[in-house]
C-alpha cells in the first residue's frame, strides 16, 4: 500500500533496498498496516532469545545472552570490602554497562556512547530496587568484611533492546555466580581457600550461592501511531523513536516503567498493552532462564 504523492513515480522504479534507506518510515509503515515487520515477525513478537552460562572462566559468575543479534556478555567478580558503619552486615553490588567500539558503528573510541550511562543507571536502579538480591547474603564477617560484587556487562553487538538483553544477562550471571570459599588469614585479610583448606575454617561455609527472589524481567516496546512493536531492532529504534520499557518481577508485580519522552504521547491503554506484552514475555524469559540454570545443575 503506497500512498500517492509526489515521489510516487520514483518509487515505482526503485528496488526495495533503496526504498528502505531513503524512506525508512514509509518502508516500515507499509509493513505495519499488514501487521508484520521487515524481519517477518508479528508486532507483538520478540526475537529469538538464548543464553549460555559460564562464558568467562576468569570470573566468578558469567553469562552470554543473545536477543536476535543483540549480544551481551555479563561477568561478576567478587572482591572483599569493609562494610560501612551504617550497614555493617551488608555487602554491595556495583553495576557497570559498557558499550565498547566493537558493538556498533556509532560508537568511537574515546567518545563513549550516550546510551551506555543511561542503561547503566537503569540497570542499577532495577536490580537494587526489585529485591532480587538480599545484600545481607553478601556479608562475611559483620562489620569487618563483606563481598563487593562487581558486575560488568559488555555489549558485543548492538541491535536494539539493549536494556532487555543487559538485564537478562545480569540476572543469568547472578544465577551462575559461585562465591569462592574464603577464610581470614593472620593479617586480617580475606583469602581464597585452596583444595585442602590449609587447616583453616572457611568463614562462608554453605553460602556459595545467592538466593534470587523475585527476578526482574523486562520488555521494551516501540510506540508508533497506534502500533505497539515489541522488542525493536536498532533500525526500528532509529526510525520510530518512542520507547517504553516495562520491568515486571517473577510474581508479575511492576518494578519499573520507563518512557523517556519521544514524539508519541501514549494513552493509558497503550501502556496497559505494553504491560500485558511484558507479562507474556516474562513467562518466556523465565522458561529460558530455568532451562539454562537446570543445565548447570546437571554439570
Amino acid at each position: 500500500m503506497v500512498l500517492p504523492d509526489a515521489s510516487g513515480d520514483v518509487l515505482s522504479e526503485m528496488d526495495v533496498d533503496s526504498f528502505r534507506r531513503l524512506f525508512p518510515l514509509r518502508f516500515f509503515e507499509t509493513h505495519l498496516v499488514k501487521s508484520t515487520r521487515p524481519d517477518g515477525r508479528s508486532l507483538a513478537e520478540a526475537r529469538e532469545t538464548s543464553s549460555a552460562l559460564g562464558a568467562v572462566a576468569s570470573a566468578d559468575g558469567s553469562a552470554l545472552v543473545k536477543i536476535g543479534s543483540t549480544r551481551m556478555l555479563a561477568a561478576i567478580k567478587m572482591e572483599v570490602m569493609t562494610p560501612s558503619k551504617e550497614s555493617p552486615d551488608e555487602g554491595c553490588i556495583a553495576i557497570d554497562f559498557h558499550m565498547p567500539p566493537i558493538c556498533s558503528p556509532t560508537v568511537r573510541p574515546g567518545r563513549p556512547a550516550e546510551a551506555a550511562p543511561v542503561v547503566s543507571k537503569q540497570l542499577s536502579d532495577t536490580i537494587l530496587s526489585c529485591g532480587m538480591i538480599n545484600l545481607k547474603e553478601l556479608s562475611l564477617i559483620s562489620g569487618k568484611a563483606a563481598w563487593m560484587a562487581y558486575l560488568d556487562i559488555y555489549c558485543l553487538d548492538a541491535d536494539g533492546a539493549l536494556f532487555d538483553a543487559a538485564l537478562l544477562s545480569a540476572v543469568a550471571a547472578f544465577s551462575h555466580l559461585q562465591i569462592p570459599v574464603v577464610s581470614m588469614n593472620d593479617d586480617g585479610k580475606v583469602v581464597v581457600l585452596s583444595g585442602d583448606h590449609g587447616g583453616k575454617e572457611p568463614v562462608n561455609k554453605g553460602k556459595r550461592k545467592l538466593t534470587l527472589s523475585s527476578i526482574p524481567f523486562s520488555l521494551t516496546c516501540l510506540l508508533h501511531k497506534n502500533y505497539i512493536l515489541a522488542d525493536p531492532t536498532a533500525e526500528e529504534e532509529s526510525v520510530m523513536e518512542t520507547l517504553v520499557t516495562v520491568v515486571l518481577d517473577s510474581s508479575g508485580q511492576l518494578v519499573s516503567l520507563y518512557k523517556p519522552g519521544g514524539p508519541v504521547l501514549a494513552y493509558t491503554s497503550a501502556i496497559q498493552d505494553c504491560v500485558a506484552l511484558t507479562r507474556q514475555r516474562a513467562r518466556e524469559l523465565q522458561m529460558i532462564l530455568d532451562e539454562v540454570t537446570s543445565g548447570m545443575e546437571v554439570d
Partner: protein
Amino acid sequence: MAGKGGATPSTYSPSPTTQKTKSLSFGNDEVLRPDDREWHQCRPAFFQIGVVAAAAGSAYADFGSTKVIVSVFGPRESKKAVMYSDIGRLNCTVSYTNFATPVRGQGSDHKEFSSMLHKALEGAIILETFPKTTVDVFALVLESGGSDLPVVISCASLALADAGIMMYDLVTSVSVSCLGKNLVLDPTLEEESHQDGSLILTCMPSRDEVTQLTITGEWSTPKINEGMKICTDACSKFSQIMKSCLKGFDSALEEEDSNVD
C-alpha cells in the same frame, strides 16, 4: 587496589595474585607444561567470522583461555579533521574488559597494543584501495590467558578479510617464550610471567614476509633463529586454519544465495 570514584569503598581480590613457587619446575626437561602441552605445541585454536552483525566484518578467536573479538568498520569517512590523503587510513584500538585479567582491571584502552596492532597490519593492507577514507579495527580482549597480542593480530586480519578489505595476505602472529633453556610456543599467562625473554613474530605466510618482529629479554643468536623457525612454522599452520574458516563461511553464503535465486 584503590576503588574507583569517591563513593565506592576500596576493595581487594581475595585470590592470591602471584605464585612464584611454581617457577622451579620449568627449567626441567622432563616436566611438561602446566596444560600438558609439548614445548612446541600451540593451544587449540578456534576462529569464527561474522560474529558482530553491526560491523562490516568481525572475527572471534579463542586460544585456550585467551578470547578476543575484533570488529572492523569502514572504509568510512575519517572522523577527525585530517589532511587529505591519497591512500586510506588504518585506525586500531585494543581494549580489555574489566574482567579479562585475574585481578579486576579498569578496562581502559591498551595504547601499546593498539600501536603494535597498527604496525603489524598496515604493511599487509592495500591502503591504495580506499583513498580518503578510514578503516577502523577495534579489538576487545574478553579474557586474557597469555599471548594476547598475537591472538589479537591474527583475529584482526581475519576480521579485515571478512569485511572485504584488500590485503596482500592474511597476517598471522605467534609468540615464543624463553623459559630457562626451553622455548615454549604460544605461552599462557602463567608461563609469560616466568619467561626470561619473549619473541613475537607476525608474518604473511604465503608471501614469506615478516611484518613485525618483537624480541625482548635475554636471547642468544641460535635461540633467536630457532625461535623464528618455530614461529614461522606455527604461523603457516594458523593461516591454513584461518583460510578454511573464511572458506567455510563463503560456501555457506553461496548456498544461501542459490536458495534465494
